[in-house]
């Protein structure tokens, strides 16, 4: 394998932290978190389908009081990533690119995803 000489893309350590790039990196982090969380999704379906120890272990794991914290984190990651995704799709069609629009829509997404997470866990 030849070693690539091009520099690694987003140099996180050299940017000044501001709303826009913080939200951008949270989009990636929440995506990675959602990937690891979604590994549980097929396991949950299998636990419903197959009787036995596997079901007992899975349901005990999901139902454990301490599991609530990572699950709350995952629901926040879902709401954040899905809402922030709308911003990305709007940028792709050239909308919302003014500096104040980018900032305000970012703050709106954070506020909305936090309140949706609270509503979800209050209702469930």
């Amino acid at each position, binding site marked *: 394998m030849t*070693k690539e000489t091009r520099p690694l893309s987003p140099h996180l350590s050299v940017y000044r932290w501001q709303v826009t790039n913080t939200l951008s990196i949270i989009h990636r982090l929440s*995506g990675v978190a959602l990937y690891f969380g979604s590994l549980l*999704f097929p396991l949950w379906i299998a636990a419903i389908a197959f009787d036995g120890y596997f079901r007992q272990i899975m349901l005990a794991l999901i139902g454990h009081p301490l599991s609530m914290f990572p699950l709350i984190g995952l629901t926040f990651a*879902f709401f954040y990533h899905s809402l922030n995704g709308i911003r990305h799709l709007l940028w792709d069609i050239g909308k919302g690119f003014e500096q104040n629009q980018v900032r305000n829509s970012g703050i709106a997404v954070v506020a909305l995803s936090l309140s949706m997470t609270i509503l979800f866990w209050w209702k469930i």
Partner: protein
Amino acid sequence: MGVILKIRRLFGLAGFEHDSDHWKSQRSSAIALFILGYWMIYQLLFFLNEASVSEIQQWIAQPLNSMLLALTVLYTFYHSELGLQVITEDYVESKSKQITILYIVRVIRLSLITLTIISLMRI
């Protein structure tokens, strides 16, 4: 681009995508997953939150639920792989390590898709 290739990509049975193919697939899978994800949230809030195992089995036994659940899993891992591919290419310097990571992600994806389909067919 043929529709058969698109279906194979959704099932993880096609090569890794690049450039404009990757770009378009990432966006179309995002839109599909947005709809499916909020369908799942709705079901969790209003049907599955207090359901017993047998009630969840009855819920899955409905053809529409079964189909949408399978599509949610397929699109979840399709969209995840496309995203992880970008992150890997951005942060992992060595090309061979990038490929190793992508293959591990693909093997996990194929295993979990298989598990999902087998499980749904048993219910």
